[in-house]
């Protein structure tokens, strides 16, 4: 967990800080969107939370409407 948070902090220092200093609002919004998603996906398994497989949902959806072999 420590490594994950350190890594993400480093990424924020490398990329987010320059964006804040340049006051680029849209870029900050874009960065933070991806940052939060990535951090969440990285941290949850470390906390023991199971994230359901993403494509399994679409698999079931397509099979339910008959679009599969």
């Amino acid at each position, binding site marked *: 967990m420590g490594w994950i948070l350190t*890594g*993400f902090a480093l*990424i924020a220092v*490398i*990329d*987010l800080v*320059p*964006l804040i200093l340049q006051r*680029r609002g*849209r*870029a900050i*919004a*874009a*960065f933070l*969107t*991806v*940052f939060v*998603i*990535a951090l969440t*996906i*990285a941290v949850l*398994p470390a906390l023991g939370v199971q*994230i*359901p*497989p*993403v*494509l*399994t949902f*679409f*698999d079931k959806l*397509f*099979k339910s409407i008959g*679009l*599969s*072999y």
Partner: protein
Amino acid sequence: MRLDKSQISGTRFMFTITFFLQSSALLTAFLSSVAQQDSWIPVVLSTISCMPLVYLFRTLMVMFPEKTLLEMMDEVFGPVIGKIFGVWYLWFFLTLAALNLKDLGDFAKATVMTETPHVVLVLLCALVVVWAVRHGLKVVTRYSALFTFIEFGIVAVTFVLVAHQMDFNNLLPAFQLPPIKYLQGTHLMTMIPVGELVVMLMLTPCVKLSRTAATKYWFIGVTMGMLTLFAILVRDIMILGNTLPMFTLPGLVTMRLVNLGEALSRIEILFAVGLTMLLFFKVAVLCYASTIALAQLFKTKSYKNFALIIGVLVVVYGPIIYSSTVEQSTSARDVIPFFWGVFEVWIPLLMFIIAKIRKLPKKTAENPREQEPQPPPRRRVKEEHMK
């Protein structure tokens, strides 16, 4: 507005396409579980059936020469629907990148570096990918030609080295499977390696291509890539015969069988080297597309600051796409051809139709390349002189 000012030549673009297709060498395992000894037939059929799809991609590239796929969708579908599709495509590129990066890590861990943690292997690759993406398309595609020829060389050399073990009878009986298997195989080959070339539409502004050149480079690139896949499949079928569907990495098994004296054996490291190059390159192109897509969705002026976080997202996203490799291979075989078809065929086709109906793109000073080069004016010097 162009985010990446770098330009690549048509030839480099062509090799990018070829190498992108070659990186689907892992796919042969999915195909052989469907079509067994007839796996070469869907490759031939898909090479023919994918041509309209390739022509569609080429046409979109020519119709909107200064726009990426997301910008094309903005213009054609409007800002709202264009953005919604844009978010879907961003997810699509990220998913492809994550799947391929995970495959690279899985392969390295299973065959070469069994003790090294999976995350270390993928993180190292991702860091190099991020570095390349930050420096633009020119750096991402710099080695496409070299890698393509290296892969050709590996395939050719192994073909020669295992030739004495090949049995043409392993290709028989041909055309004896139920027609649905050939359909499934063709669909799989069209959607997964060829259809994924839709990502090349994110590279459009960086490629200088006239209509004729676009046609040439697209079709030659696809043909070379499919020929490589065909050669790999035929080699594996003739060597492995009825054991082919058993293996998760048939190419690796084939290379392990090379045994010409003591010196020329155990050359499966060539497979590892080739596959690492291929998957690294594919992940780099997909990460580049994802970064540009993100930048364009949020209308930012630069994309470089997003490369690292996109790379990290791809690393952490990979393990949660499927619950197991068995589920991944079953899904790839049975469902993915339909699902990926939405991104690779239906939306681009819809975009093309709507663009034609609305007579898009509107010709402006910004996109003069749409027009064919005008012939030079006739020289009237002699007539004036005679007057």
